[in-house]
């Protein structure tokens, strides 16, 4: 059985209140979800707090998952990411956060990104992302994974506010066209 199916089975058991299945689900998925929280929050302790909330939510909402909404892993990551972004929006991002914790995925002068991991989850998205310029790819990925606003993105890429903004706008425009094909 592939990891995908196994996660779905575990979610089904969790929706029936099976704590053992919940622990297996946690062991398999928490390193990824923790990384999701760290990349938004930059602080280990806060990220652990949010991770905990995310799993309490997953425990209570497992029955809401539907395979039509994407992979089980993606669904769970999305719960963690939303919770983390809510926290950042409420408290603001702490500039003195522990940057060392976060491996920035791409730096400002990288070439095209390696999207093979994305392709395993969503072939079509990866294909369409490949067609974007490296700048557009980076802007979209960084905004999504770090929860950056346009201003934060500009600071991160060391470019004026408008540059990051237009990379994103044009990137999303081509993505939309490509995904609609």
């Amino acid at each position: 059985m592939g990891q995908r199916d196994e996660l779905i089975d575990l979610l089904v058991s969790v929706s029936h209140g099976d704590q053992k299945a919940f622990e297996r689900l946690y062991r398999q998925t928490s390193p990824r979800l923790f990384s999701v929280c760290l990349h938004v929050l930059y602080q280990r302790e806060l990220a652990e707090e949010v991770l905990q909330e995310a799993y309490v939510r997953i425990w209570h909402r497992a029955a809401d998952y539907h395979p039509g909404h994407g992979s089980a892993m993606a669904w769970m990551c999305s719960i963690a990411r939303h919770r983390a972004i809510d926290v950042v929006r409420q408290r603001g991002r702490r500039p003195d956060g522990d940057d060392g914790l976060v491996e920035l995925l791409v730096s400002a002068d990288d070439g095209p990104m390696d999207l093979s991991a994305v392709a395993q989850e969503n072939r079509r998205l990866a294909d369409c992302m490949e067609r974007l310029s490296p700048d557009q790819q980076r802007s979209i990925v960084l905004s999504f994974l770090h929860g950056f606003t346009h201003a934060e993105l500009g600071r991160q890429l060391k470019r004026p506010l408008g540059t990051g903004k237009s990379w994103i706008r044009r990137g999303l425009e081509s993505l939309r066209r490509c995904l609609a094909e």
Partner: protein
Amino acid sequence: MNDRTQKLDDELAAAYVLGTMTGRTRLRFERRMQREQELRERVLGWQRHFDALHALLPERRPTERVWLGILARINMAGRSEAEVGIREKLGASIRVWRTLALAGAVGVAALLVFQPMMMPPDPPPAPVEVPSADYLAVLSGEGGRQHWMLAAQEAEQRLRITAVEPLETLPDQDYELWLLPPEEDPVPRSMGLLPRVGDRTISLAEEDLQDLRQAGAFAVSIEPEGGSPTGAPTGEVVLVAPVLPF
């Protein structure tokens, strides 16, 4: 709706999911989403796509206390339910226990063995320490089977741990007991190893009593023989029980 508006809405939905849409624009967009089914579907579509980007992240392992905190919280949420369940199960026995305690007759283990209906008019002579517990926790597992029982006495600052039907261990393993303070993110404190037979009494620090008063919880983890080498749980957490004032 014409093509141009559709295209615009689709790009707005993408910016919304990406998170680059902020402030008032975001609020306005969320209000529209509440009214417009089509907009919600666009958002969901982008969400499905962008969620795949999480696959780019390197994995990072959180510390074990996250899991313990989650366990404590999902068990707390069911706490009133669990409490009712445990009380119902034990209710009659607890009354018997209290009566017998007054009469100075029967120990903790006996309480769990006797069903009240089957109580003979004269309880048989049994181990005789008068249990006067202020707090109680029952470590029970699948099918409500009770494995260990914990009874704390405030005045004596003691915790009596009784093996009722202990879980089986492999030869090189032990079950270790942890006290979880009633906090959002509890740091578990070791209460030592659980007895395989009979009972064990340990003394409680003021800090422990305070956590019992404020409704903490107990947890049991599987550890290498002799207990956790790190001072924090290292193995699977197999049982959790809320502390009940008694």
